[in-house]
Every structure is written in structure tokens, then in C-alpha cells.
């Protein structure tokens, strides 16, 4: 199969033209799409591609009336460009001049311009000289019959758009992230906005007649949205989005050449959609899989801390709290005793204990009896100490009653990062020696009042 694909790519001139053309288009639209996405304007391509219709129809009518060849590509492109630009100006004006939101503005421009275009098309169909057949393919695309000139046109436009966006990437970044700041620094933000819209119009009009309306929208939206799952940096995002755009264009065109009934436009969109799904699941930033893994490991860590603290508190209640140094093993603890410290099931406690054995924090003497190892003792002390420091902090800073302390601290302490722990340590630095576990400010459920409980000495 790969050999066949290779052969197709190697020898079929038409396929090569299509692949090159769509790849360049994917590259350019991926890049422009990034800025649109960051500007929260992902669907601007949707509005502008629909809005080219009245321009195309109008120049067709005018050219026919003047007796020119109305189906010549430059004339139609000019019409598309004019109405695309007018639509872009309207979008900017409606956004700035009214309180209508982005989605409403795009919906208005899209539907009204497309309405004008449809009305004009219906009139064109009445012209004696020509059908609007040529126009249909101009609007809905004809990827499979892309000719070399189309590929050159797309290549040229892609080059212009890419170099423009790269040259202005710093300014466009400012436009996307902090328009107000940009304005205060004297940057012509409205002009930059129009430059971005101009880039969209350029990509859309060369792409539209090559690959069709819906595909054009997809190429502007999907690669950028997929790239968002891999990086937070604009420069990397530009590269990834262009790559995704180009790769899905190549894959779609090749698949279309290989399977005779598969139209290339939809094939490209489906290839892009697959890349998007892969990014959604496996993306390194915000990917669903990553989120699940993170949530799982966070839950495990929380469980471990609960068990370690439970063991420590039981030992503490027996006045046998392990010390930081000098102990290789703590006293034995039964699973039954642990069961009383929280509302958890026996099987759950056993599962966590198994995990702790695997981490070498706990040693099992029998299925019922466990002791902490030296590293387990350190972890238990640190978990308990951190919990109680936070309880004291809450008690004094947030005025939470003693009864609510344990619960509140329990909710919040597991999301502490190192900075917050360091800040807590700072606050208690003068009162607590390192590794000292302060007494609990409240009676502890399931273990009774610890011998060391002195009622909130701090």
C-alpha cells in the first residue's frame, strides 16, 4: 500500500499539484488561524468565506454587462476580495460601534452577505448568456481538478501571508493578548486588526475556489485549535498549527487520490479532525489523557497522605509518636484502628496500604498489621505537620471554628504547591523546630484525645 501511495505521489502530475497546493494552503491557514483563535475569533473565516459570495456574483453581473469574460479568475478573485474586505470592515465596525458580541456579529455578516449573494446568483441564472456553473465551483471548490496555476496562486498567497504574519508576529501577539496595552503604547491596533483580517481574506479567497467553503473554514479553525493542546508558546504554536494544517492537507489529498470515491476536500477536513482528536486526548497541555493521569496521581497522593497521617495520629494518641531520627520502624498499627480515623471502607484502606508498601513507606507484618519504615516515618511526620500548621493558620487567620478546622484543612492542603508550603513554614518558623509536629488544635476522630493535646497551645 505504501508503495502504491508512493507511486501515486511519484508519478501522477495532477496529484502532485493538488498535494502541493493544499499543503501550502494548510500551512498558511494554520498560521493565520492561530492568531484568530487567540483573538477569540476562530469563526471569522466562516463569516468571511460566506461573505465572498455577493462580491463574486456582483462582479460576474457587472463583467457580463460590460461584455467581458465574466468567468476569468482574476475578475472573480477581485470580486471575492472586495466583498471579503467589506465584510471584514463591517465586522470591525459592528464590534467597535455596537455592544453586539463576536458570535452575533459574525452570524449577522455571514447570513446577510450570503443572502445578498444568493439573491444575485438567482438573477445570474436568468442571464441568457451563461449558466452560473462556473460560479458554483468557484464557491464550493474543485480540489480534484486543481491545476498548476491554482497551486502557484495558492503558493504565492501562502508565502505573502506567512511572511506578513511572521514579520508582524510580535505586534499581532500584542493584538491578541492585550489590545488596551497596545493602544496605550501607541500601536495602531485597529490597523493591525485590519491587517489580520486582510490575511484571512487573502487565504480564504485563494483557498475557496481551490478547496471549497467548509474546508476553508475547517483549515482556519482546526489546526490552530489542535495546536493549542501542545504548547503555551506562540512561536511553537505557529509551527505546530502550520504543520498540522500541511500534514492533514497532504494526507487528505493522498487518501483522495488513493480511494477514487473519496473527495479530497472532506478527506482533508477528516484528516485534520483526526489530528485534532489525537491532540485532544494525548496533547501535552490540557489533553484529556494528561488530565486524567494528573487527577489520578493527585488522588493517590491524597490517599497516601491520609493514611500516613492516620497512622501517625494513632501512634501519637498512644504516646508512641515516631521521631524524625533514629527509628527504622514504628510501632505496629492494625487495619481496624486505621479504619476508625476516616469514613472509608476496609478494602479501600487495604488498597492504599498496598500502594504504600510498594512505595516502601510501610511494611506489612501480617495482612492486619503494618509498621512505618524510616522513609514512611518522615513522610507521615511531614504530612501531619503540614496539616496542623495549616489548621493553626486557618484558626487564626480565617477564624474557622475548631470543629470545622479538620475538614477545611483537608480540602485545601492537597492542592498546596511548594511556594505555599514554604510560606507556611516561614510563618511558623519561630514557633516550630524543623520536623517538629505541633499538637492538634482539635480532638481527632477515631483515636480519642491525644495525650499531647493541650487545647491549641499556639
Amino acid at each position, binding site marked *: 500500500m505504501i508503495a502504491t501511495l508512493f507511486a501515486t505521489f511519484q508519478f501522477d502530475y495532477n496529484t502532485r499539484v493538488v498535494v502541493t497546493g493544499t499543503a501550502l494552503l494548510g500551512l498558511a491557514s494554520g498560521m493565520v488561524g492561530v492568531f484568530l483563535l487567540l483573538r477569540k475569533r*476562530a469563526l471569522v473565516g466562516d463569516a468571511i468565506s460566506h461573505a465572498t459570495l455577493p462580491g463574486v456574483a456582483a462582479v460576474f453581473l457587472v463583467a457580463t454587462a460590460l461584455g467581458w469574460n465574466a468567468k476569468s479568475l482574476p475578475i472573480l478573485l477581485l470580486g471575492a476580495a472586495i466583498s471579503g474586505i467589506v465584510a471584514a470592515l463591517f465586522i470591525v465596525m459592528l464590534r467597535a460601534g455596537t455592544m453586539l458580541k463576536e458570535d452575533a456579529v459574525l452570524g449577522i455578516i455571514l447570513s446577510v452577505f450570503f443572502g445578498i449573494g444568493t439573491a444575485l446568483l438567482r438573477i445570474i441564472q436568468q442571464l441568457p448568456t451563461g449558466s452560473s456553473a462556473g460560479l458554483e465551483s468557484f464557491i464550493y471548490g474543485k480540489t480534484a481538478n486543481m491545476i498548476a496555476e491554482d497551486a502557484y496562486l495558492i503558493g504565492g498567497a501562502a508565502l505573502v501571508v506567512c511572511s506578513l504574519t511572521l514579520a508582524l508576529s510580535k505586534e499581532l501577539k500584542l493584538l491578541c493578548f492585550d489590545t488596551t496595552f497596545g493602544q496605550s503604547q501607541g500601536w495602531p491596533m485597529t490597523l493591525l486588526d485590519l491587517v489580520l483580517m486582510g490575511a484571512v481574506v487573502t487565504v480564504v479567497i485563494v483557498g475557496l475556489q481551490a478547496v471549497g467553503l467548509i474546508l476553508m473554514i475547517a483549515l482556519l479553525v482546526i489546526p490552530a485549535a489542535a495546536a493549542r493542546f501542545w504548547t503555551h508558546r506562540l512561536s511553537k504554536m505557529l509551527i505546530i498549527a502550520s504543520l498540522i494544517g500541511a500534514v492533514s492537507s497532504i494526507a487528505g489529498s493522498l487518501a483522495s487520490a488513493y480511494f477514487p470515491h473519496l473527495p479530497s476536500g472532506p478527506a482533508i477536513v477528516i484528516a485534520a479532525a483526526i489530528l485534532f482528536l489525537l491532540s485532544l486526548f494525548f496533547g501535552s497541555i*490540557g489533553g484529556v489523557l494528561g488530565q486524567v493521569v494528573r487527577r489520578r496521581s493527585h488522588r493517590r497522593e491524597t490517599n497516601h497522605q491520609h493514611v500516613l497521617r492516620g497512622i501517625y495520629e494513632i501512634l501519637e494518641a498512644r504516646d508512641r509518636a515516631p521521631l524524625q531520627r533514629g527509628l527504622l520502624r514504628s510501632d505496629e498499627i492494625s487495619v481496624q484502628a486505621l479504619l476508625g480515623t476516616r469514613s472509608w471502607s476496609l478494602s479501600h484502606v487495604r488498597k492504599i496500604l498496598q500502594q504504600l508498601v510498594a512505595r516502601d513507606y510501610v511494611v506489612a507484618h501480617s495482612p492486619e498489621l503494618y509498621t512505618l519504615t524510616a522513609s514512611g516515618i518522615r513522610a507521615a511526620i511531614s504530612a501531619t505537620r503540614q496539616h496542623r500548621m495549616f489548621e493553626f493558620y486557618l484558626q487564626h487567620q480565617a477564624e474557622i471554628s475548631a470543629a470545622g478546622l479538620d475538614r477545611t484543612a483537608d480540602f485545601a492542603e492537597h492542592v498546596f504547591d511548594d511556594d505555599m508550603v514554604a510560606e507556611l513554614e516561614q510563618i511558623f518558623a519561630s514557633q516550630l523546630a524543623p520536623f517538629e509536629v505541633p499538637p492538634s488544635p482539635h480532638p481527632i476522630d477515631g483515636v480519642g484525645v491525644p495525650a499531647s493535646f493541650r487545647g491549641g497551645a499556639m
Partner: protein
Amino acid sequence: MNALLGELSFAWQWSLDGWIGLAGMLCAMSAALLGCFLLLRRMSLLGDAISHAVLPGIAAAFLISGSRSSAFMFIGAVLVGLLTVWLTEAARSFGRVDEGAATGVVFTSLFAIGLVMIETSASHVDLDPGCVLYGDIEMIPLDLISLGGWQVPRVVAILAVVFVINCSAVIVLRKEFQITTFDAGLARSQGYSPLFMHYLLASLVAITSVCSFEAVGNILVVAMFVVPPATALLLTKRLGPMIVLSLIFAIIAAWVGHISALVVPRWFGFQSTSTSAMMSVIAGLMLLLTVFFSPQHGLVVKFLRRRGMAGAILAEDILATLFRSSESGQDAMDLTSLQRKLLASGFWLRVMLKRLQWRGEIALDGSSIGLTAAGVQRAQNLVRSHRLWEKYLSSETDLVDGRLHVQAEGLEHFTSRQIREQLDQETNRPAIDPHGKKIPPESQ
């Protein structure tokens, strides 16, 4: 006007055009009603998204049932419409993809899948995406069904049912829609489910879109979901009036749209054009008019208001300049020196001079311009405001000397008698301003 009516009576037949207008109106009203909530929830593009995304549903229904029966296609389309909403919501919540981008990803992908389904497996049978998806409003009167002895176009009956469903949903669940739209958090705390309402609205949108595509084509319904509600929002801030206004705009767009589809092309020697397209164009025109001429926020109104303010300030500056000049013993000024002093354009200066003369506050004697008694009174208070502000700002703020004048120059136009009195008190009733100029007394 008579010519227009004449042309119209030539083309208009109630038995045809009445039904077409009625179908357009029902479709427009159904869509505009839901569109109000879509707009407020920032989901205006849902209609557009669903109109493309239903394609695979229709194709699947066709491939499974093997027929073009409306019932199967309808179910398929509504299911995919809901799937669109669900996938968008999933991409938004699981992947934290921006709303617009999520919509774009989902509907383009679904549309592509639909195209592939049609092209690969149904290309040998008659299933053209264009004709399956999008009906033609002009064909409505040809497809009649009998309802209680009346011959009614099938589409009009369907759209009437859709309108009744939408209306009753909005009326019965008005409170729920309102609270979940404006404050989802509050709604949740009160025991309403914003998610349920979200999907309910989406289902209604899907049903409305699918019924309308089949009946009147997609362009009309996509436009009506957005344009009339947006026009209404520019005119009112209250939900009830907004709904009523958007329904009115929808009705106007439908009837005027159909009439202009018949009439306008005739002006250029063509036959009639697409009615549903003209309906959306008319809706767009109404929006444009509102954007420019809406009484509160219209761009023209805003411009006039700003121009009027600028004119009033210029007039006051003329009076104050003449007063200062008379303080230095020169009772009248000519136009050139006034213009040089005020840096104003000659046109607006002359306009405001005329206005002041008409109000009897200045007198023109040849080329020299002087204050009348009434003019002196107003000018005196202006200059008093200016100098009191300078005094106040110099004692109460640490503005540098050069900035005092600029600040006072702006403030003097918005200073009432009460404020002057207060300024006077707080600066211990000064006789001169920081620059040593005399502060004139309050005039009567």
C-alpha cells in the same frame, strides 16, 4: 409608490404569495424567538453550525432507511443536531477549547463526514446535498395537504407546529430560560439545571433548523436566528420587549423580503429573485438602520450628540474669550483674531457666532464682535468658574502651574452655580486666581 403597487399587483397572487409570505413569517418568528436566548448566551452561530452539521444525519437516515422519507431524515437530522451541541460542549469542557473554535471544529468535521458518506456510498443514487438539505420557499404552494377541509401547504402546517412548540416552550419555561441565561450560578443554587435548559434550547434550535431547511432553505433560518434579535438588543435592554421587537422585525423581514424579491429585480429588467435570500437581506437592512439611527446608541445619534457638545463648548469659549478681551480693555474682536485665539475651524466658528447672535448674547457691528449684556452675564460665570477651578486645583492638588489652565478649561463647561458656590467657599472666597487675575462676581 403607485408604480410600485402597480408592479406588485402584476406579480402578486394571494393564493401563492400569501402562503410564501406566511411560511417565511412562521419560520422567521420561530427562529427569532429562540435567537433571543441564543444571542444572550453567545451561541448565535449555533443555527449556522447545525445547518451544516446535520448532513451526516440526513445521509445516515437515507442509507439506513433507503428512502427519502421526511420522517427518517428529520429524526436523523435532529439527532445529529443534538450531537453537534454535545460534541461542542464536550470539546469546550474537557479540552477547554474556545467556544467559537469548538463549534467550528465540530460542524466542519461533521459536514465533511456527511459529504464523504454521500459521495462514497450514495453517489449512484439520487442524493444531492443541495436538494436534500435545502428546500425552496417558492415551491411551497405546490405541495398542499388537507387540514379540516382546508387546502394548506404542508410546509406552512409544519412551520406553524414548530412555532407553537417554540412559543409554548418559551412561555412555560420563561423563568427557567431567563435565570439560566443570565446567571447560571444562581440558577444552579436555586435548583434549576442550566445544562438541561442548554440542551432543551439546542433541541428546539435543531428542530426549528431542520424543519426550516427542508421547507425554506437554510439561509433564511440562519439569518433569523441572529439578525432580528441583534436588532432588538440594540434598541432595548429588557428581555420581554426584546422578544416582542425581534418577532416584529421577523414579521417585517418576511413580508417586505418577499415583496422586494418580486419587485426589486424588475427595476433592473430581471425576473423575481430568491425570496428567502431577500428576507435575510431586509433583516440585515433593518439592523444597519438600527446601528446608525437607534435613538440611544445609534452611530449617527452619537455623532450628532458629540458634535452638539463640541458646538456648545465652542460657543462658551467664544463668550469667555470676548469677556477676557474686554477685561484688557478691548471690547470687540474681529473674526480672524477670534479664530486665531480659539484654533477653531472657520465654518463651525461662524455657525456658533450665528447661534450666539440669535440668542442675543453677542452683537455684530461690522466686522467687530462684542458681548451684549446677556452675553456678559453668561461669560462672567464661565470665567468665574474657570478661575475658581484654577484656585481650587492649585491649593488642593499638586498639579504643576501649566496644567492648571488646561484642567480648568475643561471643567468650566460643566460647572453649575452650586459647584461655583462650593468652590468659592472651599477656597475661602478668593479675589484673584493663581495667575493674579481678578475672579469676577457671580452674575444674576
